[in-house]
């Protein structure tokens, strides 16, 4: 549900960056979503399309880069992970520790780059 707020922030940031670079037309925008960032990619795309409709950014396409989950074992420090949220429940493959692994990667919600004219 919060994808609409996220899409609004994205567009706001894109506008800032374009103003800085003297551009007026947004063509492409790349966003990184970590595996457990809590943003549903399809829903974000729909919100983005609704926001740009009938604006100067109407042609803009949102591209999503997904980042897998990476955990650091709370006991031995081993780094491991997997594609989806399920990896959160994995015991450490090195020492078997089940509890409290630290999320090293997977919470990202980043604007990566733009193409604009």
């Amino acid at each position, binding site marked *: *549900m*919060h994808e609409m*707020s*996220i899409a609004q*922030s*994205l567009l*706001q*940031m894109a506008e800032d*960056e*374009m103003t800085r*670079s003297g*551009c007026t037309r947004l063509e492409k925008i790349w*966003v990184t979503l970590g595996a*457990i*960032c*809590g*943003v549903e990619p399809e829903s974000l795309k729909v919100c983005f399309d609704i926001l740009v409709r009938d604006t100067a950014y109407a042609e803009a396409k949102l591209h999503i880069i997904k980042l897998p989950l990476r955990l650091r074992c*709370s006991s031995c420090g081993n780094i491991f992970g997997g594609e989806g*949220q399920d990896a*959160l*429940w994995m015991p450490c493959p090195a020492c078997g520790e*089940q*509890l*409290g692994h630290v*999320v090293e990667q997977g*919470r990202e*919600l*980043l*604007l*990566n*780059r*733009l*193409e*604009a*004219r």
Partner: protein
Amino acid sequence: MKIPVVRNVLEANEKMAAHVRDTLTAKDILTLNIISSPGAGKTALLERTLKDLSGEFRMAVIEGDLQTDNDARRVAATGAQAVQINTEGGCHLDSNLVLSALESLDLDHVDILFIENVGNLVCPVEFDCGEDAKVALLSVTEGDDKPEKYPLLFNLAKVLVLNKMDLLPYVDFDLGRACNFATKLNKSLEIFEVSCRNGDGLQQWYAWLRRMRATKQM
């Protein structure tokens, strides 16, 4: 033209949250962001807490709801300062809304500020409101797989309050399963089993509040 950026999409919210945190820390106010599903008992927990600790702390509440000021009125009935934010359909509070709500509170007379977020286990977790800690609230009338389904909240919360324990004999909630998955996500998560209806277990929650408040003052 290609414009490389790499900016955190939530940076505007996080910047504002840092400002809220600084403002409240300068006044030694412990700030807690309470997050749960609708109906888990956030307002009930606050009503109890505000009543039971009224002689000990000066407390204030920011109430987030989609509509109505019902909760703010319930909370204000205990004598605490309360301010309602209606998000008009918005699924979470953000630091900007909290900052504007602070203007309606007399912060010179507050020891603990509770932010009662919109009932939702997903969106509120993403938006830092400038709190010292997130409090996850879960009730035994919900599914015991909530920590598995909504891991981020349990990963980030400092405590988990399990409410409606008086109903445990009548429901199929597997306490072990819920706690096991919650602690898998967060080794240092403290879990308090309470009933806001009959008051059981609340002393542990109050003891935690006292500890947190003392730490904040140091």
